[in-house]
């Protein structure tokens, strides 16, 4: 009898523990490479047609209906590694030492990252594909490859290439696609199966297929996305010509593949019965690659990304206008896992917004976001120098400071002197040929080729040429940021006010760009030829001034 009671007691205790454990949600983080804010759920309806009227993302759209859809989510830096350094650390990228650049990045293990903190708090963590990179060691803030689950295959990362290969070998199109989704599914299953102790899990799904390159014509061929349906719908920085429309349709094809793989994982999650206890977050690391004003630009087309959140404790079916920096996800995840948020994190938890019930602007303090950029491709400019920029963005305005307006924003015009002709094949495939901060592709190739024609000369200079130190755009009147008002005397007070707010935030968060004329970012190892990988070094600890 006594033993039975003890046994019952133990059973009750165990049940209580399990209940407590089930109080901490799983985290399913679906993060696409180079995916801007392109999903059907972002379509704005009649009169405001855009790319989102063409893109097809049924799975993501379905999740948007039961979650929170953020319209004003921005990356901190529109370049893979610094974006991810900020996202993983919960700190502005300029506080992550050598994680602040792309080529030559080195992760400093002293920086707390939320996945490793969740792991420390008992989470079963795992990832498939890209988490943090390019940089050394790859995926370091996620524990390197020790939590990688990708044995079933990585072919999703070259989606159109692999599907084209399979269909060329005679496989039916849908079967070929299914074969790639099956790899995604198996990797996730392997991850779940490895969770022997029933711990809450955290899974990062980071396929890279939306990143260039992709197969020309694959948008139409694999997804039946008609390039002509983009006519009149692309932002003005993209020439509305057949070559560019096809390129964009191909990009949207990869987005459709991304959506399908998201659907695969959400179905799989449903099968485990864990859906109601899983926080699902979907986003991307910056705007469209190799499309003017996208990736590597602080314009909205470069930093604005999709963000959807659904799960336990989230009041769903809302569209929210609060400004979000992806650094905000770190404290959000940590709080979900009952882990204290380190003081050094500059991101702010989204839980107050997620739990609220109203739509539109929820938190009246969330009206601005700060973005920036240092170096992307290391040899983009003579002297391996960065293109330093910082910006403050509100619902009405964006102010961009280009600290070195003498430099070329997308990299030097290598090989283009005196009307020189670069081979089409190289322009489409070799990013570093010219303007190396703009990814190679048909769009870049077309614009470079047309750069001296009377019709496109100005356009080319607008998107790839040097920019003034200050850029100010009125987002209500000019949502695509085409008219720089920075030198308009009527805007002087506005500009001064925004600049003050921007510089105050940079100073508060210890941005080395403001110290010694940006020496930290202008000297090796952050500038100059890439050094061999060596132990990480941070600038003198940029403490938070709160």
């Amino acid at each position: 009898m006594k033993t039975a009671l003890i046994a019952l007691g133990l059973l009750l205790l165990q049940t209580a523990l399990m209940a407590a454990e089930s109080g901490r949600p799983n985290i399913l983080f679906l993060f696409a490479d180079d995916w801007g804010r392109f999903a059907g759920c972002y379509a704005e309806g009649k009169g405001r047609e855009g790319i989102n009227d063409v893109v097809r993302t049924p799975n993501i759209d379905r999740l948007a209906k039961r979650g929170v859809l953020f319209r004003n989510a921005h990356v901190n830096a529109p370049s893979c590694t610094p974006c991810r350094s900020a996202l993983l650390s919960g700190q502005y990228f300029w506080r992550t030492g050598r994680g602040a650049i792309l080529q030559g990045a080195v992760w400093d293990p002293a920086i707390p990252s939320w996945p490793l903190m969740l792991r420390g708090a008992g989470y079963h963590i795992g990832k498939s594909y890209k988490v943090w990179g390019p940089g050394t060691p790859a995926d370091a803030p996620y524990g390197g490859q020790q939590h990688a689950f990708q044995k079933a295959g990585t072919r999703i990362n070259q989606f159109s290439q692999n599907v084209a290969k399979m269909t060329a070998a005679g496989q039916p199109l849908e079967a070929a696609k299914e074969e790639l989704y099956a790899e995604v599914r198996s990797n996730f299953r392997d991850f779940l199966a490895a969770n022997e102790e029933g711990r809450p899990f955290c899974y990062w799904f980071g396929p890279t297929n939306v990143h260039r390159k992709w197969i020309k014509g694959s948008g139409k061929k694999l997804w039946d996305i008609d390039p002509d349906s983009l006519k009149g719908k692309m932002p003005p920085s993209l020439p509305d010509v057949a070559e560019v429309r096809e390129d964009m349709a191909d990009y949207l094809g990869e987005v459709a593949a991304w959506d399908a793989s998201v659907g695969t994982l959400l179905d799989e999650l449903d099968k485990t019965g864990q859906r109601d206890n899983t926080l699902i977050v979907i986003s991307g690391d910056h705007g469209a690659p190799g499309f003017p004003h996208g990736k590597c630009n602080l314009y909205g087309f470069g930093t604005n990304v999709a963000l959807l959140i659904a799960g336990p404790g989230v009041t769903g079916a809302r569209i929210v206008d609060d400004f979000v920096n992806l650094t905000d996800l770190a404290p959000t995840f940590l709080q979900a896992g009952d882990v204290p948020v380190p003081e050094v994190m500059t991101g702010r938890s989204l839980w107050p917004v997620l739990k609220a019930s109203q739509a539109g602007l929820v938190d009246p303090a969330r009206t601005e976001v700060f973005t920036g950029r240092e170096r992307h491709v290391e040899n983009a400019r003579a002297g391996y120098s960065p293109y330093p920029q910082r910006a403050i963005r509100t619902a009405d305005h964006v102010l961009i400071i280009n600290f070195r307006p003498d430099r070329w924003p997308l990299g030097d015009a290598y090989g283009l002197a005196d009307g020189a002709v670069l081979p089409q094949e190289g322009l489409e495939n070799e990013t570093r040929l010219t303007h190396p901060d703009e990814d190679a592709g048909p769009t870049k190739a077309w614009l470079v080729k047309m750069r001296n024609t009377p019709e496109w000369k100005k356009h080319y200079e607008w998107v790839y040429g040097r920019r003034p130190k200050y850029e100010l755009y009125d987002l209500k009147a000019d949502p695509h940021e085409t008219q720089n008002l920075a030198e308009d005397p009527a805007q002087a007070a506005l500009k001064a006010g925004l600049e003050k707010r921007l510089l105050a935030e940079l100073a508060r968060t210890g941005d080395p760009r403001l110290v010694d004329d940006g020496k930290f970012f202008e000297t090796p190892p952050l500038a100059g030829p890439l050094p061999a990988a060596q132990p990480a070094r941070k600038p003198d600890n940029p403490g938070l001034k709160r």
Partner: protein
Amino acid sequence: MKRLSSLLPVLAAIMGLANPVSAAPPNIIFIFSDDHAQHAISAYGSKVNQTPHIDRIAREGARFTRSYVTNSICTPSRATLLTGQYSHLNGVPVFNRFDGSRDHVAKRLQAGGYHTGMVGKWHLGSDPTGFDRWIVLPGQGAYHDPVFLVPGARLNIKGHCTEITTELGLEFLKTRPMDKPFFLMLHQKAPHRAWEPDEKNKALFKDKIIPEPDTLWDNYATRPGALPANQQTVARDLTRRDLKLEPPADLKGPPRMQWLNQVPMELTIDGKTLTGTELIKWKYQRYMQDYLACVQGVDDGVGKVLDYLESSGLAKNTIVMYSADNGWYLGDLGLYDKRFMYEPGLNVPLLAKGPGIKAGHVPSQFVANIDLAPTFLDLAGLPVPESMQGRSLAPLLRGETPGDWRNSIYYRYYHDPGHHNTAAHLGVRTSTHKLIHYWKQDAWQMFDLTRDPAEQKNLLFGDPATHSPEVTAKFNELKAQLVKLQQEYKDDGQFADPASWPRDGADGPFDDKKPTGTKTIVEAILAAAPR
């Protein structure tokens, strides 16, 4: 008239080779392979293989038909490549370490504004100097999953060495400072012994029947001494390792090595026991299949580089040169390996294409590896120092025929005692004749190359009293020419005595390089920059 002709070189130097269209100094890529015979290139009329990509260089540029080395082994040849000097002046007569503090072409190009890179086989013992980035094999290096040395460290890269070396070269190009001209030495290990091709090319040659050379069965008649005593014959000196024979599974450690190092004189292949002539024929096929498969890998790599230059637009201002560190015997004279100054060992491929170089041009002047360093400097618009003994090939590349060009070549091989028991020798080759002196035996050989290009009939064989007056006269003429060349090139026998050879070797140890684990191509090129 005389005054005018003496002015011509000056004018040429002022004009430079660099094309008149663009003032920008040209980029230079020098692709170097190890042991690639001239007659294993289809542009040179190979009877044993096709090299479509190296042929592209010949078609779009110049192919030198009389291109020689001055000391036909790896390490000395590489020292000559850098210094433009004969072994007796650059201090590398044998497999000894090159003194990196010496003046050489990469240092001068670097100082002249070039971004300089060295990728692949180096085999000079010391750390490369004069390079902005370098990543080299330790000593000979390995074909599979090779170790590479970089400033201060060593690292491993998974894969086949030939492909890796090409990829490292391409990564170097992609990550260079784009506002500077570049000089890249892309040095393949292949097709060096023990001829271990990648799987793709291995399969391509697995069942090929390679034609035998006419002199595979050479009995060395009229050439006693060095040739009969040599240990680099197809018949007697290919080991089980060379022939890719599989040791018994239970053999481990030193006994396994011993087994592999033995020369089989009887073999059972597909149930048939081979000995004598049949076995030699089989050995020749086995050796050549792997050798040519390795060459194919090198040619594939040349193709990749040329494709990249085309697609990147770099081709129009980039000079691509191809050569090899020494000659090679494809069973000729019954041999494999190099060393001997008979034609297959003395000749090397030399091809170049790029701005200012005449397409389809076939210069026939006597050129040698001492000319390469001066050529690079001249192409870059930099002065050639007096200390370099070679002469810029730029005028020849332009299609000019300078009246005062050399019409013979001086050769000297020291490594005796050394590998393969090849006797030390020196000699001269003219457009019609060759005189070889095995100086330690004081044995002479002379060939009339116009009548006897395969060097089968030594005109000095037998009692001198029986020699024709023409032969005696030619002998005396060539001996005098040898003395003249030795004076001209300042060879006073500095390294004739093995006791005078510098001691430190070219094969390590490289203990100062700490292991840093397996790296990708990208990571490896990152590590190639000095810290």
